[in-house]
């Protein structure tokens, strides 16, 4: 009798804490909506495609930041994908065993470095470097800007894409590869005609996952993007992303509508990363089903 009571109590207790996790997630969405309500009501959907960001006049639009986020994230993905794919293939297929451990450790180390340290390095190493490059190309020598932010992001998302890609690449059945080798295929042919087709959707999922990381990345981007609230007219121009404008201006937001607009940017960012993560998960789930069918 007493045992049953204890069991009941324990189940209720653990269920309460599980419910707390659910409440934080749902409550988070509700809180973001409620806090941004003044902005949602005032600006409506046009918030998404308005370019003005004028705290003095109380006029707010998220377009420069949405564009800034998308441009830097996709540029970062474009820069890092060849390297993450190369590293994953190298680790899974080309590297000698001794090198594999060290390389794997290095990739994990890249993932462990805090964002703010990437930002510090960005300010004192990458920004002067990009400035030199801009002078050589006779561009306005800002140093900071969307391109610098994309470079930093590319380095930061590399480990995520690499580890997912490597996991998928190492799942390719030995029989398939050995079969191809037995027919006289070269290592490149095995990679090109066996591994890549087999791992294609996993590679795609890894890329999407990395994209999700890039979209929400805040500190390193804030430190090198130049923090200008204007829509960018070239990839070298200083601008802001959704995350960086929140980081920069949240403590300065004095009026209700200003704060609400910043929170609404947070809400949009939350929804975008949600969609991206669901997409990545959907691809991996489908992958599992396919594998199960083979």
């Amino acid at each position, binding site marked *: 009798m007493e045992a049953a009571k204890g069991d009941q109590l324990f*189940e209720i207790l653990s269920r309460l804490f*599980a419910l707390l996790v659910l409440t934080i997630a749902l409550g988070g969405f509700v809180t973001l909506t409620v806090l941004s309500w003044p902005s949602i009501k005032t600006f409506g959907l046009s918030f998404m495609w308005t370019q003005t960001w004028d705290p003095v006049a109380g006029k707010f639009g998220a377009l420069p930041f949405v564009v800034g986020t998308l441009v830097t994230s996709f540029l970062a993905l474009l820069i890092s994908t060849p390297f993450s794919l190369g590293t994953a293939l*190298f680790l899974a297929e080309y590297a000698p065993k001794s090198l594999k451990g060290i390389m794997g450790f290095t990739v994990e180390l890249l993932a462990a470095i805090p964002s703010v340290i990437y930002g510090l390095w960005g300010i004192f190493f990458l920004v002067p470097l990009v400035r030199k490059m801009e002078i050589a190309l006779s561009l306005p020598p800002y140093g900071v800007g969307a391109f610098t932010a994309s470079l930093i992001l590319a380095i930061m998302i590399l480990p995520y894409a690499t580890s997912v890609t490597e996991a998928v690449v190492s799942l390719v059945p030995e029989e398939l590869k050995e079969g191809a080798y037995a027919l006289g295929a070269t*290592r490149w042919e095995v990679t090109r005609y066996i591994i890549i087709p087999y791992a294609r959707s996993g590679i795609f999922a890894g890329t999407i996952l990395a994209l999700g990381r890039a979209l929400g990345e805040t500190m390193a981007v804030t430190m090198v993007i130049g923090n200008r609230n204007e829509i960018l007219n070239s990839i070298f121009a200083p601008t802001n992303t959704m995350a960086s404008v929140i980081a920069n201006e949240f403590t300065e937001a004095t009026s209700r509508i200003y704060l609400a607009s910043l929170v609404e940017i947070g809400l949009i960012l939350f929804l975008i990363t949600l969609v991206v993560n669901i997409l990545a998960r959907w691809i991996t789930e489908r992958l599992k089903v396919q594998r199960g069918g083979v």
Partner: protein
Amino acid sequence: MDKGVTRRLWKDRVATLLVTILALVPLIPLALILLQLAVKGITSLNLQFLTSLPHPPGEEGGGVLNAIVGTAVLLALASALAVPTGILAGIYLSEYRDRTLPHAVRMAADLLQGTPSIVIGILAYAWVVRPMHHFSALAGGVALAIIMLPVIVRTTEEVLVLVPRDLRESALALGVPSWRMILKVVLPTGMVGVTTGVLLSIARVAGETAPLLFTAFGNPFLSLKPTEPIDALPLVIFNYATSPYADWWRQAWAASLVLIVLVILLNVAARLLARRMKGE
């Protein structure tokens, strides 16, 4: 040799070279970051830096004792909130699997894990800073706890599910009620794995800056009170790096070195534990 075969072999060599280059290039930024951290950090690191408070802006010298203590306070607060919650929620997910609630909680945890940390900062601001009407260490701790929570929940679940059925049933057969079986048999068996997850989650939040900007806020004085604003190493790095003072830039490098050593130590500890678990 056949012309076609020669071409195929050449193609293979070029591909090998290309893949190797693509794999080695990412090591360059990593080497640069670590090298500069070590060089610029060590030259500025001394006992005074670790044991004194910051000097007023523009004045040389001073240290980051407030931030080191602050980071410790924030991590302790976050762990106190997230560890028991995460472990109990993880137990629920692993032990009561056949319901709809676990499925929803699992999705919620994944959702939280994918949420950008700056957005988590907004939540802690809404839930703690606004009701209290000022920034506080508690708000920062709550923000970090929300980031730690999904990691702990999911690792706890994954580890506990692996505890063998025989072990559970032996305990039950001895007449132990199932809640005691969970606490005395299942949880201790998975303890190493759970601890690994906790350490990894602490390592992850130790370097978090964005969610602290408008929760813990920063504080140039030494503070231990949860109700007052508090400083943290990542905040100091951000504020100093973006300041106009050369001496503060130097200190930002030194603070970064301290932070990265902390993060790497936590990661290594987690990895050693994980290896021990595999060994068993």
